[in-house]
């Protein structure tokens, strides 16, 4: 599903004063593209994602998700959202957490058991989320995203709270799932190498008020070898753009 953003600006009202967060953002994202957003912390990455997920109405500008505004896209269940806090429902088992999303979204192409198997949680169908490790909780959140069968995945640093190793394993699994389903992915991250490893395109954002500083294409085959000169060149290009962003 294509995403088009034209002249998008947003301001927050803080103590009666207007604080500009996004300034004249223009983006074209092709259907099935994996786009990473990197930028200094406190820039409007999350705000941009929240606007796309219709959790926030922008001050001005146009957002088009497959020919519809965010409200319509959400109403048509085109959007799947995942954040650093997996927001699992602790009072339901992992199985019921999946079943609930399916019921609300009216999707039943897979059984909850199939989805749990996909993310390696088959043995934990009757467990409650609070008994799972941080990595397993994010796996469950990932299964919930798959259950939605949405065309757009908005992911706001979903693995930021995990240790390096778990994080690498999970991003690998996510990539495999993305290659099967081919949704359009917007992936917010702080990690330059992670962005280079995952994305088709890395957008480097400036500090607040955020604008797009650089658009770095990553045309390397997957899985990507981080030791190659080509990969290192991409990392350097992203880093150079980020350095520019620092005031």
């Amino acid at each position, binding site marked *: 599903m294509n995403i088009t953003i034209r002249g998008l600006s947003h301001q927050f009202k803080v103590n009666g004063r207007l604080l500009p967060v996004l300034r004249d953002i223009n983006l074209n994202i092709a259907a099935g593209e994996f786009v990473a957003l990197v930028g200094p912390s406190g820039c409007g990455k999350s705000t941009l994602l929240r606007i796309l997920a219709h*959790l926030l109405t922008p001050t001005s500008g146009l957002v088009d998700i497959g020919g519809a505004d965010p409200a319509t896209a959400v*109403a048509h269940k085109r959007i799947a959202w995942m954040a650093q*806090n997996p*927001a699992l429902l*602790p009072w339901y088992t992992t199985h019921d957490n999946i079943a609930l*999303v399916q019921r*609300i*979204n009216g999707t039943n192409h897979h059984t909850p058991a199939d989805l749990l198997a996909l993310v390696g949680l088959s043995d934990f169908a009757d467990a409650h989320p609070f008994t799972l490790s941080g990595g397993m909780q994010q796996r469950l959140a990932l299964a919930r995203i798959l259950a939605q069968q949405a065309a757009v995945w908005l992911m706001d640093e979903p693995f930021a709270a995990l240790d390096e190793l778990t994080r690498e394993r999970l991003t690998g699994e996510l990539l495999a799932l993305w290659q099967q389903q081919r949704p359009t992915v917007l992936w917010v991250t702080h990690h330059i190498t992670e962005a280079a490893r995952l994305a088709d395109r890395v957008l480097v954002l400036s500090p607040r008020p955020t604008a797009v500083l650089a658009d770095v294409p990553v045309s390397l085959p997957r899985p990507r070898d981080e030791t190659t000169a080509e990969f290192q060149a991409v990392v350097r290009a992203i880093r150079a753009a980020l350095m520019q962003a620092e005031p």
Partner: protein
Amino acid sequence: MKAVPDTDQTQSNGIALVIVGLTLLLWEAIVRWRAIPVYILPAPSLIGQTLVGNIGLFAEATAVTLSEALLGLLLGTTTGAGLAVLLSLWPRLERGVMTLAILVKSTPLVAIAPLLTIWLGFGMIPKIIITALLTFFPVLVNVLAGLQRADPAMLDLFHTWHSGRREIFRHVRAPSALPYLFTALKIAGPLALIAAVVAEWTGASGGLGRTMWLAYTNLNLPYLFAAIFILAFAGVMVYGAIVWLEKRVVFWQPTSQF
């Protein structure tokens, strides 16, 4: 999930029992040593004898008071939780309803109890109403807080699923409010017993409050103390039952033993 392992729990229960036992022994010793008259302070042994000797009467009175307290608590909890749900769905009502609730809560119980007895007689109904009036407030305030303080990340998620208010209430807000409900019950449970007893003082045909009142007017202190012992024990039992239930209902929350 347990905050205290079982062996520690048995151990601390043991320590509590030893302290209670020592206190009773000391009490007994002082009464005998100083020959304190029975109309000032009866010895625990005499209180025990009185209790065992009149066990039928005390059991009957306890049943009456416990019924009043529990029915009142049930009525108060349902009213409080029901109002909280109403206010969470229509926040515009909050200011008006909360003002009224604070008004009811601030009116002294001792002032309303005799009135209700005059209007409704010596039966259980006025006691149940008094108990409900006293217990609904902590439930209302806590449950409302719980409903309003649902995890924003969960609410965001449900909004991206395009969920309605009813779904959000059922799957997020209501379960989020359960721990708060139990916090309220831990306050309201023992309070319910006090409310029922105080209501009985203004005139009743049965119950521990009435027993205490009769014992007091006759200066029958062993009888009065026996009733107090039963009340203290009943209070601990009610509290324990609430904690037991909490551990099973709100199993996802690491709760303390108390």
